[in-house]
């Protein structure tokens, strides 16, 4: 019978987790004051942990999805092919057969592209065509009109097949204008949505026990700033 299982992190360790989280955040955020050995330490620890975790997850997935079925005799054609293609990646280290590693890359790229393209045709091209009615109710009709006009002019901007005539040149300029609006909107919204990240982190830093770590960090920065001012550096 299957039991209800808990997430492995225990309640007692949560305080330590919060302190470590705060220390790591402040090590990285110390870059805003100045680049220091603390920042470098945080940077290296984070990259190291991330890579280590990726390796752990890779091994975990291999163990559960490949080795266990392999050892228990549940080998399917798909699994066998995946294992063979996986091993072929490593042939790049053996010069006479290194060309074989390209087969794995080819299968990966081919499958990935096929899956993406087959889904894209309907959702991203065919599915978008019926939306273009300029006579739709309310603001939608106007939006569709703007969308159609902008699409045509932006395509003209990327038209390199014909020799640019005066009409094409001015159309391309108008297309560039639409691109600038679009990029501006994207940049603005991404900038504003990224504000959410430091807010969440600041919340943690202002809650005990992480708050004590924050106070220590502020005192250290203040002391360093004072020391530098006195020293004149």
């Amino acid at each position: 019978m299957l039991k209800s299982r808990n997430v492995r992190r225990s309640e007692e360790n949560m305080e330590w987790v919060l302190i470590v989280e705060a220390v790591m955040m402040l090590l990285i955020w110390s870059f805003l004051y100045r680049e220091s050995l603390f920042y470098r330490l945080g940077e290296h620890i984070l990259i190291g942990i991330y890579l280590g975790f990726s390796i752990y997850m890779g091994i975990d997935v291999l163990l559960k999805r490949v080795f266990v079925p392999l050892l228990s005799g549940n080998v399917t054609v798909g699994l066998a092919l995946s294992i063979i293609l996986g091993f072929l990646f490593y042939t790049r280290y053996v010069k006479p057969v290194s060309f074989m590693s390209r087969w794995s890359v080819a299968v990966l790229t081919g499958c990935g592209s096929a899956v993406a393209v087959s889904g894209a045709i309907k959702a991203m091209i065919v599915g978008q065509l019926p939306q273009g009615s300029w006579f739709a109710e309310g603001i939608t009709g106007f939006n569709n009109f703007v969308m159609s006009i902008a699409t045509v002019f932006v395509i003209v901007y990327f038209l390199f097949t014909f020799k640019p005539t005066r009409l094409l040149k001015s159309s391309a300029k108008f297309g560039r204008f639409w691109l600038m609006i679009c990029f501006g909107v994207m940049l603005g919204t991404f900038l504003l949505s990224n504000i959410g990240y430091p807010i969440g982190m600041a919340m943690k830093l202002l809650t005990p026990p992480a708050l004590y770590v924050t106070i220590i960090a502020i005192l250290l920065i203040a002391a360093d700033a004072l020391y530098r001012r006195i020293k004149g550096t």
Partner: protein
Amino acid sequence: MAAKTELGRFPTADRVIFLVFLILISTPLVVLIGLPIPISESTRKSYELMNSLKSGDVLVMCFEMDVGAFPALGPGDMAALKHAFTMVKEKGIKVIIFGTYESGVKIYIDKILQETKEYWESLNYGVDWVNFGWIPGHETAMATFARDVHTACSVDVYGTPVDELPIMKDIKTINDVTGIWYTTYSSPDMLPRQWSPLEWPGLKWTICSTLFGTVSWLMPYVNAGSITSYVADQRGGAEYEVLIGKRGLGCKFMDAQSLGHIYGIALIIGSNVYYLYTHAKKPKRKEE
């Protein structure tokens, strides 16, 4: 021997900008302003879709993100998880959890499950809900899930084979799934490409929880119906918390976010005015 690199620092103006920003966003976290949170149409629709699930319906919650995005999208996901687990208890729906984007997904799922522990603790794992953790392959894994659920989800996060999980007995393809809650902090393109309700007749709806910056990206899909609704960023999360009547992290963040946004807009306007002012003062270069 490696060359010694010089340690750098930001210009004073940048440091002041960051300092003011940190003070601005920290103040409402300490002293609550309590600005009202009006509910947007998209979040309300998402809530109603989730609430429309009936006994025996299957909800897939796919989280395509790393734990780093927790402050932005975590509040919405946790509110949705609380809602889903409450419906498991009250209505008898089934919940399947996983992510396909990258290995960090597992930490994110662990984190939001830890935060919502009281909601799933009394439920029967493997019967009411299941966690498959990270399924490698991203879009390929999503495509496989749509066509053959048991191949994509061959073992759960604890290594239990899918055949031993009672919840998965009748779920063979995506047509056996009623709704999908899909969270992404990058491109939302994979959702309509692989799991569109227009493509799969059994799938009733999909909800995309995403960042503000991605909303303009997914609107064409929402208009076309290949994504049914969306929940936008921390703000959407806060709205969802209000709708389920469980105010949490999202609501706490809202005041800080409003101040942060005002500051961001002021900086954009200020820097443009400064640029135009200094540009106007400079003598124009003569054309050669």
